């Protein structure tokens, strides 16, 4: 099979998986909860019953023969569209971006779910990317060192780090970091930007569409906005605010990736071509970093695909501990007020990201390792 055939097959599978996933989520949220729960995002208290009924009809939840809204609420026979019919209507609305109004406390009914989600999502993305970055720059060297110093002190340290990372509750680690930093070292470790930085958000050199003196939001990601607007105090504040949450998020995956790199590195170091490289008189560093690492890093590439999924999920806990203004933090609020649409949107967006990343990783893997056939 050629590469493009493989990619085409995977794309088809991807669409299938996403459709199946949407059915699952639809069934969980709409099939198991009464139809009025999801309707809450589309109706306002001020609407009269006929307006509510027409909204329900437009969404494909109530049938056209339904006499009144109260009949619909009491689930009168012939009033509620069967589930598969509801699914079609739901999917149409979902793909059109019609996710209703948000029910999140404080901003309930004033903004659309779609807008609330995507204005918060950059923060989560920033956290997840920073977590992945820390995982890679700490985890991979840790794995290499523990493989080259097998059963010596660096190996033991790396083993403790990885076992500790597997075993430590993330919320607890985050809380301990906060206690240490805030109570004793008195550094701003709460994950919130310091007070003067909100003022410093105003752009210095402004790109199109941003008026000088206004708050610069090109990407929504604070770190990136700080660079783009050449606002370095803001940039620095975002970096400082990011360190502890990102470390908390990465602590588990650092251990995982270092163990993977360690075992694959040890496997590679036993092979003949490494002995050859050494017998040619190459320096040990060259042997390890030029010859061995290239092959040993491959399994870590596969895992880094799963890493995204893991970090996006783990972000929920970290965001809550650090009061991070991302989607994970809002998802708990959404769960508390039964904002079904927000949760559905969150699940679907992360699922799309995970599925696409997995595909990309597999393709990159095949490019990196010519031995892989489809």
């Amino acid at each position, binding site marked *: 099979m050629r590469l493009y055939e493989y990619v085409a097959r995977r794309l088809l*599978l991807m669409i*299938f*998986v*996403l459709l*199946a*996933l949407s059915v*699952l*989520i639809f069934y*969980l*949220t709409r099939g*198991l*909860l009464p139809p009025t729960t999801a309707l809450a995002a589309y109706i306002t208290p001020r609407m009269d019953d006929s307006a509510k009924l027409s909204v329900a009809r437009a969404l494909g939840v109530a049938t056209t023969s339904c006499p009144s809204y109260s009949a619909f609420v009491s689930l009168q026979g012939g009033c509620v569209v069967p589930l598969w019919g509801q699914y079609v209507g739901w999917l149409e609305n979902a793909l059109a971006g019609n996710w209703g109004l948000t029910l999140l406390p404080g901003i309930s009914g004033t903004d659309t779910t779609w807008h609330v989600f995507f204005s918060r999502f950059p923060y989560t993305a920033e956290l997840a990317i920073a977590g992945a970055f820390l995982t890679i720059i700490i985890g991979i060297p840790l794995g290499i060192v523990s493989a080259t110093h097998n059963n010596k002190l660096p190996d033991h340290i790396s083993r403790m780090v990885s*076992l*500790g990372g*597997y*075993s*430590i*509750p*993330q*919320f*607890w680690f985050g*809380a*301990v970091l*906060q*206690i240490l930093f*805030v*109570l004793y070292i008195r550094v701003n470790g709460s994950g919130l930007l310091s007070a003067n930085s909100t003022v410093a958000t105003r752009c210095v050199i402004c790109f199109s569409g941003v008026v000088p003196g206004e708050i610069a939001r090109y990407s929504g990601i604070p770190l990136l906005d700080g660079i783009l607007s050449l606002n370095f105090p803001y940039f620095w504040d975002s970096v400082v605010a990011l360190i502890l949450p990102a470390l908390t998020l990465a602590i588990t995956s650092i251990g995982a990736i270092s163990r993977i790199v360690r075992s694959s590195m040890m496997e590679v170091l036993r092979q003949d071509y490494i002995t050859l490289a050494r017998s040619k008189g190459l320096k040990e560093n060259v042997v390890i970093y030029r010859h061995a690492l290239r092959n040993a890093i491959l399994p870590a590439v596969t895992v880094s695909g799963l890493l995204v*999924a*893991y970090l*996006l*999920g*783990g972000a*929920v*806990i970290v965001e*809550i*501990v650090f009061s991070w203004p991302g989607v994970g933090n809002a*998802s*708990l609020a959404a*769960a*508390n007020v*039964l904002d*079904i649409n927000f*949760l559905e949107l*969150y*699940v679907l967006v*992360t*699922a799309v990201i*995970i*599925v696409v990343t997995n595909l990309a990783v597999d393709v990159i893997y095949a490019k990196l390792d010519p031995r892989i056939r489809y």
Partner: protein
Amino acid sequence: MKASKPEESQSSDRYGRRADLKYALHLLRRNPIVLAGVTISVASVLLALLSPLIVNPTSWDQQPLNLRLCWNNPIVNWQIANVFNCGGSAVYPLGTDSYGRSLLQMIILAIPVDLEIAFEVVASAVVIGVFFGGLAGYKGGIVDEAILRVTDVFLAIPGILLAIVLIVVLGRSLPTLTIAVLTTWWPYYVRLMRSQVLSEKEKPYVERLRAMGAGDVRILYGHIVQNSIYPVLVQATLDIGSVILTVSALTFIGLTPSPLLPELGNLANQGIQYIFTAPWLILFPGLTILIISLGFNLLGDGIRDVFDPRLRR
């Protein structure tokens, strides 16, 4: 397995499993870290079993009035030492919580709750994994494809998120929590068992069994599964800790049936609002989770060393 320890291969041939057990004990003695893992995990299970005898199991619902008053009294100088000593530090070695209960007692009551959920989730996941994973690996073809695609769907959602949705939909209770975590956990076991069966079913003894006229069910669940289940059991041991982490994370963010429930994440949850005034509320329950899950991880690591001959060198 036997070839990799030449110095014992003679006795191993003669005594078979007994020699393996002896070898495992030898490894245990040689490796203090694994010994620590065994000690911690056995101790936590014992503590969980004995917990109703140590602490009155209904005491979590009682909120001593004087302690509540001490906690919520604005006149009391709100300093860490004062609040910690609300009931006297000799009576309450780990301090009291915001409901005026002894934190140590609550932690002892919470350990069986968490361990029970963890064992339920892992055991169910192993059973599901052995059944469907074995089926997928052994049958191949469309059965394999169908089972794999279903796991794909579940693996495409971050576990915590799926669990949150499930708890919201099904309601907040301990069984729901178990089901929610199990829903995110089983696909890994199906994948793991499938890959084990795939490599095991090509071995000559399977051919021999088939030639002897053994049925598929007997070959798969009687022989192949028995020979390939060790990695699954190792994963199960490692996962006890991870399940406790996930469950406590979910209860920590507030997805519990009751804020009073003694459950390690739930105990830590009431600590987050007092994080800078009463840090022990989050420190000790979290530390308990860390120790228990570290114990099972060390145990799983040790078992893997014993059963995986490639790592013995």
